[in-house]
């Protein structure tokens, strides 16, 4: 498949990560948002991310220049007409996504494939508003997209074999290993990780161990790159909580009840790396601050 024209709708964190990953493979990509300004801001964030990669020796200034030259900003949805693949990465809102797919369906030639980057919504339901439910597929990339080498390829009820094959080839092009999953709440990755994070919070709350030691135990004991509490901080505690609530609502099992300290921290606005305070503290560049974790005594059940 000559996947040579790719349009990403939505220049948020996931859209940026995708654009960076695609451009890094040598493919041109258009990053589209409501205004050119927002799209350009997305590209500025990509430049920041590439600078970070250079500091980690992962690429050179010349690589960065070449990658940025392949990403163009746009605010005109008409441009999707010329794409072979359109990727949707707008906010997780069913109504917004349905409206977008309806517009795209009217604009694009019938062979264009639509990929939705949703982690929560039903592909089948999104596809129903178009005349191409066989050519819509979910691809759930994990954040940060350039670094995580797996993608869940999510088949809706009507997604065709051919579309699945093309999505898998696209994953290969991006250097991601595709994992086939069927539409179901949380797919594989979210469904398994979120309750694990929640359980770590229970362990903390019950005073079994400190945040630092819980993470150390899981990192060294089971080969996690990042401990569960630090991972929750990275994902965003509000995101983790909304996921627990979503699984609870969809699957009605009490094991998906958010841990009380998770609720408490979200209410306090301690959302993790993005607010500088979660289970650990962070500076404004997101680097973890060393030192004393006694503040988390607050979250423990006093014996």
């Amino acid at each position, binding site marked *: 498949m*000559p996947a040579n024209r790719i349009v990403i709708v939505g220049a948020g964190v996931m859209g940026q990560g995708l654009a960076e990953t695609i451009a890094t493979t040598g493919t*041109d990509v258009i990053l589209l948002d409501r205004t050119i300004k927002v799209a350009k801001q997305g590209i500025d964030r990509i430049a920041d991310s590439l600078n970070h990669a250079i500091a980690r020796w992962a690429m050179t200034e010349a690589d960065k220049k070449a990658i940025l030259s*392949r990403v163009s900003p746009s605010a005109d949805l008409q441009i999707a007409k010329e794409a072979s693949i359109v990727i949707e990465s707008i906010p997780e809102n069913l109504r917004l996504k349905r409206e977008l797919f309806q517009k795209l369906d009217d604009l694009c030639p019938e062979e264009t494939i639509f990929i939705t980057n949703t982690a929560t919504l039903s592909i089948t339901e999104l596809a129903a508003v178009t005349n191409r439910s066989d050519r819509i597929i979910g691809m759930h990339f994990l954040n940060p997209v350039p670094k995580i080498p797996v993608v869940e390829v999510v088949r809706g009820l009507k997604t065709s074999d051919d579309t699945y094959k093309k999505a898998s080839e696209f994953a290969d092009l991006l250097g991601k290993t595709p994992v086939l999953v069927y539409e179901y709440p949380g797919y594989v990755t979210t469904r398994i990780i979120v309750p694990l994070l929640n359980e770590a919070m229970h362990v903390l709350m019950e005073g079994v161990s400190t945040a630092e030691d819980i993470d150390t135990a899981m990192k060294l004991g089971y080969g996690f790159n990042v401990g569960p509490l630090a991972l929750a901080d990275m994902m965003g505690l509000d995101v983790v909580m909304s996921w627990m609530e979503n699984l609870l609502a969809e699957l009605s099992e009490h094991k998906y009840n958010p841990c009380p300290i998770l609720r408490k921290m979200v209410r306090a606005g301690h959302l993790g790396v993005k607010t500088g305070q979660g289970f650990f503290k962070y500076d404004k560049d997101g680097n973890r601050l060393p030192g004393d974790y006694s503040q988390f005594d607050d979250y423990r059940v006093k014996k």
Partner: protein
Amino acid sequence: MNILVLNCGSSSIKYQFFDMDKEVALAKGMISRIGMTGAVLTHKPFDRKEVKVSGEILDHIVATSYVISILLSANHGVIKDKSEIHAVGHRVVHGGEQFTQSVLITDEVMSEIRNLIDLAPLHNPHNLRGIQACNKTLPNIPQVAVFDTAFHCMMPPTAYIYGIPHVLYKKYGIRRYGFHGTSHFYVSERAAELLGKPLNQLKMATCHLGNGASISAVNRGISIDTSMGFTPLEGLLMGTRSGDMDPAIILHIMGREELSLHEANTLMNKHSGMIGISGVSSDMREIIDAANAGHTNAKLALDIYCYRLKKYIGGYAMAMGGLDAIVFTAGIGENSPLVRELTCQGLDFIGVELDKEKNSTAIGKEMIISSDSSRIKVLAIPTNEELVIARDTKDIINGIIK
């Protein structure tokens, strides 16, 4: 016989079109930015001005058809009909242990080249794409593969086996392969001709100093050792590659800086070498300018570059039990009198006497640059890998090589 020589990269194709009856290049050029916006074909017929053509060049198939069209074009072309292309010669980077010489491309050969992708993930896939493209655009025209590794295939195990568990050689083919073979072969042959001696009576150290750099010990026409190893990272200091170092260093850095495999790989391949040491440039001309302007680390990079080369020349003289000639080729080797001078400095004790005058005039041309009394001759020879590919292709088509 007219032969098209192709060197296919991920997003570029370099080509030369030869009339092999006269051994002259009728045209040469390249296509860059394949699969991207702003793809360009640059084409230079031997007797006319260079032209640039831009177009939508989505893949290697479209790219090869552009090459064919321009060779046929009324204004810029050099032939009238497609049938005047008699064969295509491809540069293929890795021939593994299977390919010890150039071969006619068949389905079987293609699948073996494919099997070697593990050993050369950055090159073989694109070389293969070029071959597939020619299958489509030039059906029924014979194609030949010429391997960068082939010239080194006679190295003895003492030179190619590493000091690690032997099972890894059996399991993954971990051994020295060497690269730039076509260039080392060409310049060693030319050196023998310039010296007026048969190749099989000469012991030479051939130094290919380009973006990548390697040195070969060519004993009586056979490469018995070479500085690049399992990958083109080993050996000499290069523009952006570290060359030889203690492998424990990289493990240590990976631990200290928590680097991934990819990050460690680009650290050694793209951030090291002269750019890493100097912080100035990976380009030898800029390194020399900076060194002359008093930049300490640029001077250090230049000195390390020449020092390491000198150490290898000494080592190879020992390995061959003698040395008759040192040959410099490729970008830096052909064009930098200073690098040649620094490398040969202090070697009079084994019989190297550089003629400073000749050395300074040998820029991009074939010359003996040592003094007449020098026991070990020093030569500068522009390399011509494309011509070797065209010759091998011709010989295979004529049934001379089987």
